[in-house]
């Protein structure tokens, strides 16, 4: 096995860093108790972000009666949460639109997957009546960030992929046995180097195995775990590893405790997730963004 661990720090440096404003935005959403003015100020100081946000706000999806010319006004009309999520979607769509050659998926698939997983995670958090819905959304957008690096390693191991797939019950285990690390571990290192709040590092590290996480984070991580799986079920995966992760025992327990879950709640949730995802896609396309 090549020593991939040695290469990680250098590769993290080579990932285009997200701007200080984006980090501050993630930080605000992670804390969950941000003030409207802080949010507006943060977006307004970044001209590109602010103009893209206004384009989104003025798109037909929101059907506002008149044109909105300022972020503050947008926050009043749409609410801080919506505007924060629009801003986050705007900045991360660029960072996540990379070819994951090692996973055999094209440039928009990681972004599409992250967007749907984020929407699904927020819906699950709502279903579980958790207060951290926005954090679940932001964490959903970030959960697979480690694939940006693991993809490069998988390219080098292309000859051994078949072997790993034929004996595969869990792609995370395959990554670990092929590379000595996996996209969850590497993702948490990226989050650390970006100085993201601990909650995001925890979600990224444990999103496939929430039952291994410290108890205080388990509910939030469960939302992202399920959001990730729902996105794959609905055909929005990242290529090679789609559908190749087991459901965590914590998720099974959660579903078992609620008899209506599989037959009634889940199907309704999946319908709502798809509708919201299609709207988010229309929003990104509507401002001349990438075809998600």
């Amino acid at each position, binding site marked *: 096995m090549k020593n991939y661990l040695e290469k990680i720090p250098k590769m993290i440096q080579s990932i285009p860093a997200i701007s200080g404003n984006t980090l501050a935005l993630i930080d605000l959403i992670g804390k969950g108790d941000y003030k409207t003015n802080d949010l507006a100020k943060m977006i307004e100081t970044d001209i590109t972000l602010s103009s893209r946000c206004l384009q989104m706000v003025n798109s037909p999806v929101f059907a506002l009666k008149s044109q909105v010319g300022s972020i503050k006004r947008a926050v009043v009309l749409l609410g801080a949460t919506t505007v924060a999520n629009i801003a986050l979607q705007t900045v991360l769509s660029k960072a996540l639109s990379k070819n994951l050659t090692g*996973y*055999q*998926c094209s440039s928009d698939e990681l972004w599409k997957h992250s967007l749907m997983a984020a929407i699904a995670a927020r819906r699950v958090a709502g279903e579980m009546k958790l207060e951290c819905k926005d954090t679940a959304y932001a964490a959903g957008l970030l959960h697979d960030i480690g694939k940006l690096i693991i993809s490069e390693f998988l390219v080098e191991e292309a000859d051994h*992929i*078949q072997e790993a*797939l034929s004996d595969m*019950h*869990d792609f995370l285990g395959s990554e670990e046995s092929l590379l000595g690390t996996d996209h969850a571990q590497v993702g948490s290192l990226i989050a650390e180097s970006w100085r993201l709040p601990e909650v995001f590092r925890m979600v990224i590290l444990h999103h496939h195995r929430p039952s291994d996480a410290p108890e205080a984070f388990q509910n939030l991580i469960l939302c992202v775990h399920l959001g990730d*799986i729902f996105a*794959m*079920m*609905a*055909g*929005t*995966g990242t*290529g*090679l590893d*789609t*559908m*190749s*992760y*087991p*459901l965590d*025992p914590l998720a*099974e327990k959660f*579903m*078992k405790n609620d008899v209506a879950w*599989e037959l*009634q709640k*889940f*199907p*309704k949730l*999946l*319908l709502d997730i*798809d509708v919201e995802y299609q709207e988010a896609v229309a929003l990104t396309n509507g401002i001349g963004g990438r075809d998600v």
Partner: protein
Amino acid sequence: MINKQILMVGLGHIQVSKTPGTIIKAMALGSCVGLVVIAPRYRTVGMVHIVLPDSKIDKDRASITPGYFADTGIQALMDEFKKRGVHNRRDMIIKIAGGARVMAANNSFDIGKRNVLASKKQLWQCQMAPLAEDIGASYSRTMWVEVDTGRVFIESPGRGRWEL
């Protein structure tokens, strides 16, 4: 030379075509089921992208997008064939793919399996059955059918491409 045209079949969508050169394609079926109908005598093919087994869960949605559900989706696809003059079930060949399962310790939460079973039940009620199937397991499948040949193909990242 005829230009190839690809008709994408999104979640809950239905596509039917007899235009030469056309390919009807559903990307990355996870727990969803892609159900293809081929009518060789009419040189017509079609596909529905089924997401959930039963339309009872949301009647409104089923009336707007019947393809979302196995029961209403298959019926709607058959109706599309009828509109094109294909009335006799003996003129139709059915092939299905997808229905991948989420791995779980006690096989709980297998929407993929339920999608497949509901699709077969609906076909059975129309006195039909799939001639070929590639279902279950834990990987995604992209499925397409060619109008020119009626051949159905499946592709999965890392697993290559094969004919159904």
